[in-house]
């Protein structure tokens, strides 16, 4: 299934503005002073979850593209949104929740922070190499480099999982979504879906 609409300008704007929604939502809440009893914690957790959702949306582009070809044109934008929210997440953690001295201590003392940090390093390097120039320059290794996004997604889930005190329902749901998305690729590349190109 494909059509002209997938290439239309308005769809591009729709996805672009849609990606900004969580940011706008937060902005409104900050202006209203409506972030709950612990605003800093709310902000950091919200931005982290937004980053995870964007990352999963990025990973859903390839499977979706099988049904709606042309969808792949939004992959870079969604990936950059994941990086954007992850960056805001870490910045707000550093600014509002701990001071930067503690951040360094946390990095080596707390494994869940180490996982999150590694994921951020991956996302930053993918973001920096996401432009056409770098794609050309890196050639074949570009694809290999950008497969690290799978590792980043797994690290983010572990990062989430290790912060749970008792109830695993929420990270479990995200983990299931990720498993489906990764499982699709496994089947796809081993030709079981019959579409192996």
């Amino acid at each position: 299934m494909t059509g002209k609409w997938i290439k239309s300008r308005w769809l591009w704007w729709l996805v672009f503005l849609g990606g900004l929604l969580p940011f706008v939502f937060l902005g409104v809440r900050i202006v209203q002073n409506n972030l709950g009893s612990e605003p800093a914690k709310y902000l950091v957790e919200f931005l982290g979850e937004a980053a995870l959702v964007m990352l999963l949306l990025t990973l859903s582009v390839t499977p979706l593209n099988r049904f709606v070809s042309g969808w792949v044109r939004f992959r870079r934008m969604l990936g950059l949104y994941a990086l954007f929210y992850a960056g805001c997440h870490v910045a707000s953690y550093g600014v509002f929740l701990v001071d930067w001295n503690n951040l360094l201590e946390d990095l080596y003392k707390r494994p869940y922070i180490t996982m999150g940090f590694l994921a951020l390093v991956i996302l930053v390097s993918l973001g920096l190499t996401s432009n056409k120039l770098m794609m050309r320059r890196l050639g074949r290794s570009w694809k290999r480099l950008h497969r690290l996004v799978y590792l980043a997604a797994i690290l983010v889930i572990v990062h989430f999982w290790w912060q749970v005190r008792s109830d695993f329902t929420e990270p479990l749901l995200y983990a299931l979504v990720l498993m489906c998305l990764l499982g699709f690729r496994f089947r796809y590349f081993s030709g079981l879906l019959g579409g192996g190109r």
Partner: protein
Amino acid sequence: MLIKTGKPGDIRPSEITSESAYLRRREFLYGGAAFASLALPGRGLASVSTSLSQRLKEADKTAFGEGESLTPFRDVTNYNNFYEFGTDKSDPAEYARAMTVDPWSVSVEGHAEVTGNFTLEDILKPHGLEERIYRLRCVEAWSMVIPWYGFPLADLLKRFKPTSKAKYVFFETLYRPDEMRGQRSLFTSLEWPYVEGLRMDEAMHPLSFMAVGLYGKALPNQNGAPIRLVVPWKYGFKSIKSIVKIRFMEERLKTSWEKAGPSEYGFYSNVNPNVDHPRWSQKTERRLPNSLFSPNRIDTQMFNGYADEVASLYAGMDLKANF
């Protein structure tokens, strides 16, 4: 992703109780009690609540917490850990109203001369109430200052005449999954009913407190109605809520959090800035209220600032090993 937006018709807690109304609470309680006694000559449900509001009104002021600035009622009653109703801080305020707290009874078991089932009235009857302003430090590194209403735990426990075999006292929270949605969660590592306990000398310490109210009102459900423990020098999860069972034991049971995470939550769980939780630091805490640009981060004190009173309970003990 959890995005919670208030429905337009939602009533904000500040609309229910403004600070000025709180400060005039005694007038209100006088008026309310007078009205209730006129309208409903003491019987059944009405008598429990009128007698409690009467007692709250007559509560003695104490010197505890003088000079501390209180955490607003809105935060105290909307930012809670009560995992029986869900793990989000806003879950208890949203879902705890489903819990039936009247009638209520407490069963007393184990090494004591007086055991059996007691109604809430039986439990409360002989105790005059006092107001105590205590700091509450959560193991998650946030803290509050709360005006509790209640009576010393020791006064209650003595009534049951614990025998010399009673080395520990354990408490249990209500287990009622049809009213407590968190108890129905499939992927939780906590076992229900929630169990907490104290060494007998800790329980008998004058700071250990049974609370039935806060801010001059009966305990809201999300804060552990109708009766809960408050042990101010320990992390908040030791202060068990909505108590239905008291057991005097010779041996130490494992508490719910000890079972769920033995390397993270010890039996003692005294507030201690020098012993980190394995996943986060305990050196500082975020005192509520706070805002984005005034995070209100303060240093955590040994025994939550009650060291002068309680340090002797742990003389000679390695507090790193017995965390």
